């Protein structure tokens, strides 16, 4: 038993290679970054390793399961130096999901304030971009950028784990101007 576990750990038998993940990425680069963000950021602020604090701001929970799937043995996002952390104090990236329900607006703002700079805010999923299907409802604010400054978007409802993984890697590279 133990032998098999170590074998799996060493060989990463199940994990899909990065090129394979990139193949699922169909979105052209221009659509990830929010307007005017290319110029602002942070040459060299982030290298290969970033820590993410995820904030559910009223999502239906599909985006959360896809983010959770990122840490399973198939996607295993930790091997790219990316990991989820428990506190905003430890985070480089805020990953916001959901259309930002009115009751979560305050909590999202506080989480953003608690994250030390330099930081990247990514709106993950169609809801977080502009409210998605919930746009126009009385209880949502129609997108994360109404509450916190958003640097980049990941499209999809929900975006597949491979799309989230490859987008995060590319967004970090683009924003900190890593070649």
């Amino acid at each position, binding site marked *: 038993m133990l032998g098999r576990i170590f074998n799996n750990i060493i060989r990463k038998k199940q994990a899909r290679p990065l090129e394979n993940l990139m193949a699922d990425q169909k979105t052209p680069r221009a659509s990830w970054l929010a307007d005017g963000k290319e110029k602002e950021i942070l040459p060299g602020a982030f290298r290969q390793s970033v820590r993410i604090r995820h904030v559910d701001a009223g999502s239906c929970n599909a*985006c959360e399961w896809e*983010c959770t*799937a990122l840490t399973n043995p198939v996607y295993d996002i930790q091997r790219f130096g990316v990991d989820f952390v428990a506190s905003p104090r430890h985070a480089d990236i805020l990953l916001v999901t*959901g259309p930002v329900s009115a009751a979560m607006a305050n909590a999202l703002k506080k*989480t953003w304030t608690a994250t030390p700079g330099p930081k990247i805010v990514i709106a993950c999923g169609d*809801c977080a971009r502009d409210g998605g299907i919930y746009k126009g409802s009385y209880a949502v604010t129609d997108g994360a950028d109404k509450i916190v400054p958003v640097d980049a978007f990941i499209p999809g409802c*929900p975006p597949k784990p491979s799309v989230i993984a490859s987008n995060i890697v590319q967004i970090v590279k683009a924003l900190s101007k890593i070649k």
Partner: protein
Amino acid sequence: MAENEIYRDVTSEEFPAECSRLFAGGNGRLRLMFGADLRETGEGFCVYAVFSRPQEDRFEILRLKNIGEKGGALEFHSITPKVPAAHWYERQIADMLGIVPLGHPDLHPLVLHGLYPKGVYPLRRDISPAEIKRQLDLSKEDLSPFMEVKGEGIYEIPVGPVHAGIIEPGHFRFSAVGETIYYLDPRLFYTHKGVEKHFEQLGFVNGVKLAERISGVSSFSHSTAYCMALERMAGTTLPVRASAIRTLLLEMERLYNHIGDIGNMCAGTGFAVGYARGASLKEKIMALNEQLTGSRYLRGVNIPGGVAVDALRDPAGMLQEIEGITEEYKSFIEFLTDSVSHVERLENAGALARDIALSLGATGVAARASGINDDLRTAHPHLYYNQLIFETHTRMKGDVFARMMLRADEVGCTIAIIRSILHKAKGKRLEGNIASENWEAPHGAQALGYVEGPRGSVFYFVKSGADGAPLRVKPRAASFCNWPLMPFAVHGNIVPDFPLINKSFNLSYSGSDA
């Protein structure tokens, strides 16, 4: 309106007694309760309560109409003292419509947090979403007090709404003595998105997309229950192939949820290998979903009148995939039950007593693991279920282990159902259209839709106006019934077991908050 729905108007005096009779101390089931603003059809403010009995495929729908007409107060006699399962429903009615349940033992806001203005009732038809939004004060904190427990050595642990893991938001206030939880006061509805009113804005057909997005991993249950309500309202007959496809995909949803949940419970005990194996297996099923329908969450499949994707294109290929998953699942379950340290943590943790589950109206795995034999697939046969032979399961103990093993039992049953449908499709016994002719909304009609989702029963009530537009759409997720059970299940357990107990119920915040 379908045959098994019996609508009856009652007077405000009769209402509590009739509800109490139908509930019969927990032997009847309160399936759904909601209010409606039907002033434009001359029925005024209404309160509906839907009951059914075990072994009887019949829904008794009681209605109080014209509440507060002729200048009377907008109130009705609360049924909660007799029917405890109604307590959240009645608070919801008070919040959303301003109809007050007189004599409710614990009446304070449930859905609407402090940032919503007083005296604004979102479900009233004469206030627009934009107007409500204009009056919100997003900077306002919710300062309503929590239940306070006093005594020597009792201290409070506040958790949330932003949690440490990748999960949904909600606030939990523990009152603990040492490590032991004495009382848990959950505050939810942080993800309230105004779904019920939004259905009225979107129209019936676009509503399918919204129903799919009420609760992520129950997308297909919600869209099926919603479409079923639309079809029953219009009297549409579902082609047999469409009904088989829906049944197949409902079971696929149950399969990935149950296996995922069994795996997630390992995260609650710190059993990393078990968690990783569960997650890999779930990933395989999600990939199979995508291969079948183009969506990992089975979205975009249901349409009113049938399905848009023929998921039975290749039954032979899918049978093979299912064989592979079954083999892997069997070895996974053996591996878990062989692990003494894991099983020991599950046994006796988070026990939910049968009488509490009955009176609070528990549904799904939570109810069946506490000895309540309630499964809509056999209680109210729908779709293709009445043409299949399968057994439903119950377990008596109501602890975390019972909920895990009940899921394991049900996975076996689910795999049998999937196989049986695939074999029929392979033998060309399910040929035909996948959708009936164009579905059109009838005028002034109403109906219920329901399915047994992975977390429990999902109900929808739909009612169209004189113009065929939605007048009232009421979704009820399984978790709405099960959240109130949590304080009882965690009482007397240690704080570190809370995540484990929570995972064993696998409740949806978004579905319940709607």
